């Protein structure tokens, strides 16, 4: 590699005429260097020296793991026992070693150890994965100076403060570096900071001039410098320090600091000195522990568990009182009642003389006994289920993005069911809804519309109607969206097809001169830098904004190739319409009038080869039309029409116009312009603007361009489906208002005819106040202004009533700052909720997070935030669920998200299919868990009542402890992992099904309590039927009556059968797995009983031989099992049958359709589908309906 070669290149910094050089580096802060907070000293190039070693800065090893080997056990145990239920089981486990225990200690501890062990194992595995990731990062290599000018690659983790490293193109910086020099002459380099702040444009960094000559490896042989700077901190945009080099002190600024996690772009290599390593780096200092999120369902489940605790305490209390009273009666005045219990010589637990204490101790015992009400294995089962569910999400082939080789990735498994309950989606725009690439798609020149490209919006609309697209491609069918042929030409930024003007055909068009000027303007009026590939001669462009790149690419493709820019000229290859030859043309750039958001236009003044001076201008229609000359614009009307159409199709439009200027006018202008530019006063910008204003007038219209801010594939359809599912979508973007509105149109969140409520602070009064620099007055006025607009908006909403008219709220960042203040925010929220679409533009990352919080806290509904950049991190973390788009290169959003998907459109499947399923599965599983434990608990309690509440269980200790872990948990887990009420296809077909989750039908208190009630009923039936059937008579024909162990084992058998059969009735999806788990659970019980009963009686106690010798030979046992199980299930079965038929829930209706829809009752099928496609206010469907209505109205009026 030719290290010596240095690129000479034009840089953005030099074209920008308004920016004057570098900002002064002399801040007050520099005086603090060496003082507190600014104590860091870095000896460059001598990391091993004594001076460096005394500082003992950490090495570059980075660890993101939660635990280390040493802390894993205590920390994760602590984590586990922070859960109330687990803590309770720990306490009962410890108590079980005391004589208080109603069962043996081992049988209580084993399930707890099992459950905790599995949870810890899961934690361990997750942390191990994190560790693997760390290892990967830490072992990346970078070239480091090893002395004598030799650079050798070493692993990142060995990097030390003071090392000189060489980073090459497209590599990440391994630590925070001080830029010393680069492959460019002026020691600049381009840095992509996407991972840090989500901004996609490149940042320019520049080294100090004194070090810029160190451009070869060998130059570093004797390089010595000392850097003194601030201590590690989290602020990405500040850096204060100084460098002692060659006995001179040079101030340092953020301009010289290259941050870890950012990437070197467009620069062959840079040299840098390591200043901060490992956890001292700014990015690591910024890393906060992601907030641990818990789903709504789980939080509610906690409440249910508290409720169960209350029931448990109540039961224990009642039992203790009865026990106390009966115990007390056992010994009255020295006379024993139940003498066989020897109350006269009793330990404190049964001592009638101290019956109050005995009752209290019994209370503790009862708390242990009834612990079976609380499903010990619930948490661990949920965790297992969620991990498996996440696995399914990760493995879903439909959510795999082929182009980027990215499958969906559920990073936390905590929130799966939350996906089924999303009420509001807060979406970022760039990179999320759009691909962040602009494509030149249409243009209107001289009143003629060109361009046959199809926008994503048109595609979505055409798909809805099934109508042919303008270019004749018919897209039909509901579900074969993938068949749509990609119309893109394969050239980035260009999606234009129109044979009328392509391939030089434009010369034959009626207004060929205008067309020529149009494309010349596109090729000249910009700030793009061309880069010519020396080998192939192809030109590529380096543009600040993707729109501009799209323009020059379009110009190139149409025969106006911009290939060279110097400080003062722009050169094109263009077609000469007369000779038909490609000729070179050079335009001399006299002046650039820059674009900014208030001007909304950009102009260049150029001199052609012929000596004509031209003002070329492009800008937004709102500012360009008023600046057109009053005459000579015949096609203005036509252009306006086209612009309207383009905007409706979601395209970004610009008006192109020009004017010839005579020499004199230009000189005049130039003088004033230069004066203004060189002014030092604060209002310099205003002066420049005023001067520019004077020359940008009387323009002659050329036409309009339409650029598609390319939506990601399938975004409009996805939004439509989500809207159908009743999910609200808000767009929060950092973009300009116009862009945001365009995208709103593009993805059908906005449409023509929607009432737009705009809230901004662009009023003249505010602007005046801004100039006056009176902060207090400004704040007050602004707030009032925002408040007034909000109230107006609300009034508007109220006025329209519940009419079909849809409103859209569009608010900009400045106003948002006031709207989010405590006293205004609720008003703002009310307004926003009333609107069909909400778009917040120019919002800062912080505001995005605040809006998310407002929605989350204000509506108490589940919010989902989706974004791709680091600027979305706050929002992702604040929302109930954060979804990161992993399509782009930046990983920051993904790293802080809960689930990463590659494309916005996968959200549809993620929510409607996986979300719905996970929600249904988890809630069903939890309800079932409560049910089965209540059945068990009730039988225990009722038996107590017949054992004078002495806390004796009818079950063997091991039956008790294995109930939750073995015989009943696996089917519940299978339910949680595999159950499907409705197949994926139907989930997508009937999006309204999703509302079952949003409205929380499946986990309402009514449903939870119904299941509990079912449990109580079943428990009561089981116990009393058993008691009645197994009273004192002989159990079999051998005359043996029922004893304690037969009774316990029989009842237990019935409970196992019952809960498993209940499961079988409950689920609607039997795969082999379900069959194995349900029937296997029952079989396992019999096997266990036989095996356990075969080991010696000292261990097996009451279970010894009980099955072989007593139960199995007795017809009574089998008949009773059948009888009790059936009678306990009939109520539920009847209820289900009635509900299914007469009060079907939505998923029931869909199940009907699946079973019989095609055979009978097509009307019914249609009806359900009709109900699903409801009147929405946003999305392509709504738009279609609205436009039909409009057309209808028009025809009527004619």
């Amino acid at each position, binding site marked *: 590699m030719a290290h010596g070669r240095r690129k000479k290149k034009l840089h953005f910094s030099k074209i920008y005429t308004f920016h004057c050089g570098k900002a002064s580096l002399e801040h007050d802060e520099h005086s603090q260097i060496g003082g507190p907070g600014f104590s860091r000293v870095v000896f460059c190039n001598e990391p091993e020296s004594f001076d460096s070693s005394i500082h003992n800065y950490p090495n570059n090893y980075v660890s993101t793991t939660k635990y280390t080997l040493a802390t894993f056990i205590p920390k994760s145990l602590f984590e586990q026992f922070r859960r109330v239920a687990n803590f309770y089981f720990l306490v009962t486990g410890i108590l079980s070693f005391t004589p208080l225990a109603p069962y043996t200690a081992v049988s209580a501890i084993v399930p707890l150890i099992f459950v905790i062990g599995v949870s810890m194992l899961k934690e361990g595995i997750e942390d191990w994965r994190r560790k693997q990731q760390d290892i990967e990062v830490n072992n990346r290599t970078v070239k480091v100076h090893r002395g004598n000018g030799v650079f050798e690659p070493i692993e990142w983790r060995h990097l030390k403060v003071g090392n000189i490293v060489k980073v090459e193109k497209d590599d990440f910086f391994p630590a925070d570096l001080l830029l010393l020099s680069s492959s460019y002459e002026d020691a600049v380099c381009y840095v992509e900071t996407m991972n840090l702040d989500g901004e996609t444009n490149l940042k320019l960094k520049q080294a100090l001039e004194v070090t810029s000559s160190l451009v070869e490896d060998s130059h570093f042989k004797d390089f010595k410098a000392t850097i003194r700077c601030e201590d590690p901190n989290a602020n990405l945009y500040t850096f204060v320090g100084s460098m002692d080099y060659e006995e001179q002190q040079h101030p340092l600024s953020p301009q010289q600091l290259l941050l870890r996690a950012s990437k070197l772009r467009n620069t062959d290599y840079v040299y840098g000195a390591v200043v901060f390593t490992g956890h001292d780096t700014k990015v690591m200092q910024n890393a906060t522990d992601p907030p641990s999120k818990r789903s709504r369902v789980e939080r509610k489940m906690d409440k249910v568990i508290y409720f169960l605790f209350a029931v448990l305490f109540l039961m224990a209390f009642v039992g203790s009182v009865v026990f106390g009273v009966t115990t007390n009666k056992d010994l009255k005045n020295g006379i024993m009642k139940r003498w066989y219990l020897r109350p006269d010589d*009793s330990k404190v637990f049964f001592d009638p003389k101290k019956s109050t204490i005995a009752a209290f101790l019994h209370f503790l015992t009862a708390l242990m006994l009834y612990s079976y009400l609380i499903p010990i294995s619930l948490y661990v089962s949920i965790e297992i289920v969620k991990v498996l569910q996440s696995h399914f999400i990760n493995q*879903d082939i439909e959510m795999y993005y082929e182009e980027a080789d990215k499958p969906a990735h559920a990073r936390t498994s905590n929130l799966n069911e939350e996906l089924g309950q999303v009420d509001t989606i807060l979406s970022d725009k760039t990179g999320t809804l759009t691909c962040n690439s602009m494509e030149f798609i249409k243009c209107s020149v001289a009143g003629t519309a060109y361009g046959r490209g199809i926008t994503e919006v048109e595609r979505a609309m055409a798909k809805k109607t099934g109508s042919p697209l303008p270019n004749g491609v018919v897209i039909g069918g509901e579900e074969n969206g993938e068949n749509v042929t990609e119309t893109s030409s394969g050239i980035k930024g260009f999606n234009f097809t129109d044979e009328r003007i392509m391939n030089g055909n434009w010369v034959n068009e009626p207004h060929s001169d205008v067309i020529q000027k149009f494309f010349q303007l596109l090729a000249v009026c910009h700030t793009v830098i061309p880069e010519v590939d020396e080998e192939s001669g192809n030109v590529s462009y380096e543009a600040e904004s993707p729109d501009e790149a799209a323009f020059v690419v379009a110009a190139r493709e149409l025969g106006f190739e911009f290939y060279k820019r110097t400080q003062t000229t722009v050169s094109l290859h263009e077609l000469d319409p007369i000779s038909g030859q490609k000729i070179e043309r050079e335009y001399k750039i006299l002046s650039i009038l820059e674009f900014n958001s208030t001007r909304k236009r950009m102009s260049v003044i150029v001199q052609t080869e012929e000596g004509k001076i031209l003002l070329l201008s492009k800008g937004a229609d709102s500012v360009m039309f008023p600046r057109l000359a009053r005459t000579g614009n015949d096609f203005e009307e036509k252009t306006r029409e086209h612009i309207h159409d383009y905007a409706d199709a979601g395209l970004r439009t610009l008006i192109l116009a020009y004017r010839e200027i005579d020499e004199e006018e230009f000189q005049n202008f130039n003088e004033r312009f230069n004066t203004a530019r060189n002014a030092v006063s604060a209002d310099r910008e205003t002066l420049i603007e005023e001067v520019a204003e004077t020359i940008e007038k009387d323009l002659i219209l050329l036409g309009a361009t339409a650029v598609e801010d390319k939506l990601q594939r399938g975004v409009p359809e996805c939004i439509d489906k989500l809207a159908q599912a009743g999910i609200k979508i808000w767009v929060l973007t950092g973009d300009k208002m116009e862009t945001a509105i365009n995208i709103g149109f593009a993805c059908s969140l906005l449409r023509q005819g929607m009432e737009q409520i705009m809230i901004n602070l662009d009023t003249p009064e505010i602007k005046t106040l801004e100039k006056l620099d009176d902060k207090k007055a400004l704040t007050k006025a602004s707030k009032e202004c925002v408040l007034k607009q909000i109230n107006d908006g609300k009034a508007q909403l109220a006025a329209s009533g519940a009419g079909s008219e849809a409103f859209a709220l569009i608010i900009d960042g400045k106003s948002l700052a006031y709207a989010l203040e405590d006293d205004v925010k609720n008003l703002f929220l009310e307004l926003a909720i009333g609107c069909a679409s909400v778009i917040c533009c120019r919002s800062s990352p912080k505001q995005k997070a605040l809006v998310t919080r407002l929605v989350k806290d204000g509506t108490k509904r589940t919010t989902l935030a989706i974004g791709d950049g680091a600027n979305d991190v706050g929002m992702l973390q604040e929302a109930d669920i954060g979804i990161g788009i992993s399509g782009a290169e930046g990983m920051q959003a993904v790293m802080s998200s809960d689930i990463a998907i590659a494309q916005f459109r996968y959200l549809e499947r993620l929510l409607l299919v996986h979300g719905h399923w996970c929600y249904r599965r988890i809630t069903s599983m939890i309800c079932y868990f409560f049910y089965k434990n209540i059945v068990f608990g009730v039988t225990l309690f009722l038996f107590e009542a017949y054992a004078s509440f002495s806390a004796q269980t009818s079950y063997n200790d091991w039956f008790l402890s294995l109930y939750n872990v073995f015989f009943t948990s696996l089917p519940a887990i299978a339910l949680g992992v595999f159950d499907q009420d409705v197949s994926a296809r139907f989930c997508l077909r009937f999006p309204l099904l999703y509302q079952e989750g949003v409205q929380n039908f499946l986990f309402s208190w009514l449903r939870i309590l119904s299941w509990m009630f079912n449990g109580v009923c079943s428990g009561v039936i089981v116990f009393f039927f058993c008691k009645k059937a197994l009273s004192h008579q002989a159990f079999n024909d051998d005359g043996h009556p029922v004893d304690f162990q037969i009774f*316990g084992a029989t009842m237990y058998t019935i409970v196992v059968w019952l809960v498993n059969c209940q499961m079988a009735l409950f689920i609607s999806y039997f795969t*082999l797995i379900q069959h194995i788990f349900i029937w296997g659970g029952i079989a396992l019980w019999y096997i266990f009983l036989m095996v356990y009963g075969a080991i010696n*009686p000292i261990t097996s*106690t009451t279970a010894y031989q009980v099955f072989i010798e007593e139960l199995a030979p007795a017809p009574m046992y089998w008949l009773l099992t059948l009888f009790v199980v*059936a009678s306990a299930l009939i109520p539920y079965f009847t209820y289900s*049958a009635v509900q299914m038929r007469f009060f079907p829930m939505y998923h029931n209706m869909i199940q009907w359709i699946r079973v019989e829809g095609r055979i009978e009752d097509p009307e019914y099928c249609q009806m359900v589908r009709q109900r699903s496609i409801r009147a929405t206010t946003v999305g392509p469907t709504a738009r279609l309906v609205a436009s039909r209505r409009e057309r209808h109205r028009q025809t009527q009026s004619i």
Partner: protein
Amino acid sequence: MNSSGGARKEGGSESSSKKSSKKPKYSRFTQQELPAWKPILTPSWVIGTFIGVALVFIPIGLATLSASGRVVEIIQQYDEDCVPPSYKSNRVAYIESNSTNKTCSTSLIVPKPMKAPVYVYYQLENFYQNHRRYVKSRNDKQLRFKDSANSTKGCDPEATLNNTGPIVPCGLIAWSLFNDTYKFSINSKSLQVSKKGIAWESDQKHKFGSDVYPKNFQSGPFIGGAKLNSSIPLSEQVDLIVWMRTAALPNFRKLYGKIERDLDANQNISVIIQNNYNTYRFGGRKRLVLSTTSWIGGKNEFLGVGYLAVGGISLFLALGFILVYIFKPRVVANSECPSVWS
């Protein structure tokens, strides 16, 4: 599980994807498309199930009921009658006195012929053999192994005898062993009561040692129940074994013995009862029961009636559903079914 999964229509993609590709592998398992049976409660299922239940349950009910009906049972409560009238007001004093005559005679009339074996039970009521203190008051090791006489854990207060060592068998259960005895005779001809097979075989073989002999039993100051012959090993003490299988509920029967001959109808059996067991303190009742068995066990109509009832209800529900399905078409329209959502 997914053997049948394989590559379906996406089969091609699997082979084309490179090894490094992160593309999820297609399998019916991971795509959640496993073949599944998806039953829903259609009318035919519901009606079919109910009719099926009825068809199975009613015959079982009838069979069970008739089996139970064939069992002949004679029950005689004697705790009241066996107290002499002079002690009626103070039964406890009567039973606890060493000087009172505990012998008591009564007679039973056989209502129907009883086929051998006729089981003799004693039935105790309001006796909490399932009390935790009581249930735990035994030591399985001691009962089983000769060398473990000293392991009396859990047997308090009947664990050791002062100065003389451990009590075998220890604990409250053994100590409170039932000690009423019955002697049967027909026309003054004594009727043999066999104790053979009244204990569970596994208990005799594996829970009670054949080389473990009673020691220090009922020698304390306070005597609970029956005494044991200390020359007979525990495995042969069938009454003890039966007693030590504690009952699940406070009203229970235990086998006393078997009468290995048929009894004819209207035969008059006279019984001489040694009324020793003190149920009077805790208000318990004692009954003597003679019963035959059938395949379903002893006399208890609950199961048969239950089966019939559930079968009947199912039949009724099946009819109900048939009618409802016929006369009331499925509700689908919005007007009749208030919107699913709010």
